[in-house]
């Protein structure tokens, strides 16, 4: 995929963010997470969490007292700030500080897990003892010191979110509100929701690695309700990335506003398509949801090591046309799903799931990689210190193919195009998956005709892959704020795809006799 990275790179580099708030207003940057420990801090993250090499080693020693094949300490501090504009005013703010350390010990396929929010030594030692109870072997020798890995470069920010005051953010919400209302007189309500987060993680492993990562995130959403002839319709748009304040250029904000209003207004004309099986064109970008549900989850190795995925016996097999390559990649700068390191401290990179139509590799965490005798793919992720990691996606996309969008539309006699989505789901074993289409179009006689809305689409993963008969050359990642919620753990992800044709899918709709 030719990743069309950040067309606004120029704006980003301008570095015009000015810290205008008094320090007490500037977020948590002025305060370390814990009182600085008495020992000499050895790196800024250790200092932030109030620990040093010796305490870390001591806790690791307790954690592995009954034996371990692997063990890690996952220190995390996340500060999330959100603002809401409703009825023209920004009258609600929220902040959330999540701080704790997760302690994991792995013996064979067994995992012991505990966490504590109290980062004092006695509390961490108690949690370590709890976690170590899964094991019943001999003490292993923990490392005496932890070797810091280099800082990653996937989302280096000029000004951390902690130093951006509300007086800077508030005008953005006001601007979005004003510009949205100006676009159409039938707009009744506009709501704008802002969120930014600064996350610091520090992972110390039994192998002696010390991985630190400072992960920014921001998301902006606008929700529009309009009224025509007594009928109400609601639409929305959002953008999200691991970026800083300068990412919100006027151009980007206006594009989001236009998109939200367009999506709302088209619904007054949109109807349900006829129900049943038909060819489905998936427009470039957000339609990457197909990959996330139809193949991505089924390729997560925890399902495969248990034999519970429909893809469990398919590595090396032809699963799609030879012009189809599907990738999960974390090292794409500033994307919402981007990561420098995964949450087990492994470098997060590129894993090819399908190459030229052949199924290549699962997404591995350390447990599954060990079982398969492979290197981890850097796919071990977790929602927070409260959870043990498991294999997850990052940015999942399909690379460009040989066709054009125009050729694909011309090839369809009677079908639909799907453009925007709200959510999807998959059954790992049967391979059946769905996604919900908010906006789309009917295609009749090779031409785009009437708008459609609110239909669920259902298919079977391996069958749908085989039915992708055309792939265009317009691949792009979606900038929407996607969140994946596997087993109750939410992690940010990205997805993308070029325009593709699936020769047959089942479209929810009205039965026409």
């Amino acid at each position, binding site marked *: 995929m030719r990743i069309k990275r950040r067309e606004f790179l120029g704006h980003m580099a301008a570095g015009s963010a000015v810290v205008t708030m008094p320090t007490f207003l500037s977020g948590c940057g002025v305060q370390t997470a814990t009182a600085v420990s008495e020992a000499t801090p050895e790196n800024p993250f250790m200092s932030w969490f109030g620990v040093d090499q010796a305490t870390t080693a001591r806790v690791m020693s307790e954690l592995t007292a009954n034996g371990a094949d692997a063990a890690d300490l996952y220190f995390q501090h996340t500060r999330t700030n959100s603002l809401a504009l409703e009825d023209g005013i920004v009258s609600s703010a929220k902040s959330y500080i999540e701080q704790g350390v997760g302690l994991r010990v792995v013996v064979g396929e067994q995992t012991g897990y505990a966490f504590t929010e109290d980062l004092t030594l006695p509390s961490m030692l108690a949690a370590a003892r709890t976690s170590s109870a899964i094991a019943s072997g001999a003490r292993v020798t923990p490392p005496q010191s932890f070797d810091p890995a280099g800082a990653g470069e996937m989302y280096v920010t000029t000004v951390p979110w902690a130093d951006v005051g509300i007086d800077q953010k508030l005008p953005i919400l006001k601007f979005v509100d004003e510009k949205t209302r100006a676009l159409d007189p039938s707009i009744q309500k506009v709501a704008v929701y802002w969120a930014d987060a600064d996350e610091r993680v520090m992972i110390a492993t039994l192998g002696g690695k010390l991985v630190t990562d400072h992960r920014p995130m921001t998301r902006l959403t606008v929700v529009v309700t309009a009224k025509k002839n007594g009928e109400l319709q609601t639409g929305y748009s959002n953008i999200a990335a691991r970026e800083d304040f300068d990412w919100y250029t006027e151009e980007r904000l206006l594009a989001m506003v236009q998109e939200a209003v367009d999506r709302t207004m088209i619904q007054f004309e949109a109807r349900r398509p006829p129900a*049943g099986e038909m060819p489905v064109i998936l427009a470039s970008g957000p339609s990457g949801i197909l990959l996330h549900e139809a193949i991505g989850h089924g390729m997560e190795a925890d399902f495969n090591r248990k034999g519970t995925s429909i893809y469990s016996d398919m590595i090396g097999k032809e699963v799609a046309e030879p012009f189809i390559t599907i990738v999960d990649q974390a090292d794409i700068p500033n994307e919402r799903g981007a990561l420098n390191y995964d949450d087990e401290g492994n470098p997060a990179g590129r894993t090819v799931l399908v190459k030229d139509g052949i199924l290549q590799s699962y997404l591995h965490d350390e447990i599954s990689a060990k079982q398969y005798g492979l290197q981890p793919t850097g796919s071990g992720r977790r929602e927070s210190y409260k959870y043990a990691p498991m294999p997850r996606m990052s940015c999942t996309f399909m690379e460009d193919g040989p066709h054009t969008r125009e050729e694909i539309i011309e090839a369809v006699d009677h079908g639909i195009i799907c453009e925007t989505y709200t959510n999807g789901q998959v059954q790992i074993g049967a391979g059946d998956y769905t996604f919900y289409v908010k906006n789309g179009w009917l295609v009749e006689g090779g031409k785009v005709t009437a708008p459609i809305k609110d239909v669920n689409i259902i298919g079977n993963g391996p069958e749908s892959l085989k039915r992708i008969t055309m792939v265009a050359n317009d691949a792009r990642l979606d900038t929407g704020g996607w969140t994946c919620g596997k087993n109750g753990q939410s992690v940010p992800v990205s997805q993308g795809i070029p325009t593709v044709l699936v020769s047959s899918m089942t479209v929810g709709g009205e039965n026409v006799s």
Partner: protein
Amino acid sequence: MSAELQNKAIQAVEMLENAGADDAWATVSQSRDVEFEYRDGALEKVKDTTSQGLSVQIYVDGRYSSHATTDLNPERLQGFFAEAVAITRALEPDEFREITPPYLFAERPTTHLDLVDQAVFQIDRDQRLQWCEILDASARDNDRVISATGGVYDGSQTSAAASSNGFRGTQESTYCWYGSSVTLRDYGDRRAEDGFYAGGAHVSTLPAASSVGHEALQRALSRLGAEQGPTVKATMVVDARAAGSLIGRLLQPANARNVQQEQSFWTGLIGEQAFSDKLTIIDDPLIPQGLASRHYDAEGISARRLPIVENGVVRNLYVDTYNGRKAGMDPTTGSPSNRVIGTGDYSLEALLAEVGSGVYVTSWLGGNADSTTGDFSLGVRGHMIENGKLGRSVGEMNVTGNLRDLFSRLELVGNDVYPYSSTLAPSLVFTGVDFSGV
């Protein structure tokens, strides 16, 4: 522990007032959770955690904000609160933002909710392992089983709240759940899968682990050989377990916030016959041992039985204090508790016999609904109903329509309430539903 948490909440309110808040509300919570996961004959994961948190709502100069932290270090809390007050001052004033008025938390019910079972605190490693082994053996009692993962989840939660205008309250509950998920070898590369979990506040009310594992296996077995169902307009029978989430979708915009934001198909329906007279939904927070029972809600509003829909007529919506003031509606509660759905006389068997033919839905797959219009489209799986009995297993189908219209075509209601959900719903029968499949 309740008293200690209550003191922390009171202290937090005092600290916030000292930091400059005109009014403040603080909730401190603590929980202990243990999770055992057991797969295919071996213990796979043990998670044992104690967690804490503090959340506050503050009012300064007619402005409002809310904050939460897991870091309860008193020194750092001081800084956190000072910053919270400063953030609030930087916002715009809003005449509708006001702390919950005392009349809403006066006369708190004293019903004994029976949410704490001392036996939960006595559950030990051996007991959890024994349950896991029984679940595993009963869930894997079939040649087609590829894998079964069972688990035991138990714990307790205590919270205490205090406010600057006199609210004080503590709530405590225990829980214990267990169950299994089963994956079976099906035709081709397909795996059939389903599961079953049972739980509640009291250990003694749980069905035997062997019957829970058995039920999980039976549910997975009934998925074998599933094929894509037809594109058809037909009667839909939604089983009791699946009915809860459909009711959840119906109720999602039944609140003052959605109405005030003009994003609700419930707008203007109070007093109207909006749905079939077979539909009754009561929000009842005072059911002993109920999964969502409580004496007061997140805003401190005293719990009371609240009819939402009675025989198809809309009686009340969920109204929190802020959006209530904005929309000119009296507050009820902003957050649902136990939702009790009216039952009928029919067993599931009798419902199927009465219906004759149609589609029996056992679970949903994805899909969504538009809060403003009520338009929905959901993936479904289940069975065809043929000659009044369950027929072949089907999946890969969607059901599409409008929620208000669907619930106006609720034709029959069962007597088979699914107990392991805070939405206590029986099987529901709808006529003339659009399915899409082959």
